[in-house]
């Protein structure tokens, strides 16, 4: 059972629906941005590492069917002295 304070408060609980649309739209934008960052940032960092003379990651960093990719790497992309 609600006391008089809770009763008074419940009179104001009808929230306009457009606020939900705005909040959830922003939530979806954040989620999409998060996924973009998750997918591209590791690859971008790998590319930068290569450009400044470092080594590329030994395994593909992008999400996806990674297992078969290791066999698909052409020979010319394997650095000298390194096994497939």
């Amino acid at each position: 059972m609600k006391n008089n304070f809770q009763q008074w408060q419940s009179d104001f609980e009808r929230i306009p629906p457009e606020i939900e649309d705005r909040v959830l739209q922003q939530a979806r934008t954040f989620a999409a941005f998060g996924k973009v960052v998750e997918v591209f940032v590791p690859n971008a960092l790998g590319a930068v590492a290569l450009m400044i003379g470092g080594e590329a990651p030994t395994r593909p960093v992008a999400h996806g069917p990674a297992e078969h990719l290791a066999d698909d790497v052409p020979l010319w992309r394997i650095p000298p002295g390194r096994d497939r």
Partner: protein
Amino acid sequence: MAPAVTKKIVDYTDSELIARYLRDQNTMYFTVLYRRYAGKVFAKCISMLADEGQARDATQDIFIKVLLNLAKFTEQSSFSTWVYSITYNYCIDMIRKKKKMPLLFTEDVGKVSKETDPEIPDSVLLEMKQERLEKVIDRLPPGDKAILMMKYIDDMQIREIGDVLGKTESAVKMQIMRAKQRSQVIYDELYSNDPIENN
């Protein structure tokens, strides 16, 4: 053999929804949390800010804040207490900025009670008619209003109120006592000619 019971998403606890949202980044889980608390947050914003337009903007900002800080929620308190503490602090900050002065608690408006003043029982507030209570609450300083809302609407513990306001437990107890005394004074000012409620 009994069929496996699959739990509906609306039946998930707050903790389950948070964990799944953080794992999958699926807004469906956040939507359930939003629908569970948006009405209460909006009601608190209207009560604190006394302006529907500002309350709409505040509710939106508060939920974005909740979303961005969800990973920092440590479950030291319940999720509702955490959301409400963000709400109260946001509203108090807004009022502070709007009025450009820290007019928050009873001692700020010059009517400081003494520790020897008689304690006002909870029943004095809880037995007021809703219409009168609303008028009394509207005339309280925002800090007093917030502290009474935390105690009587959200059933928050003294320790939790202290965490929200950054005060010690004894300071919170004192503040509640002053807020109740202040409410009594306002009530007497408004209704001294009509002490008996006829409605």
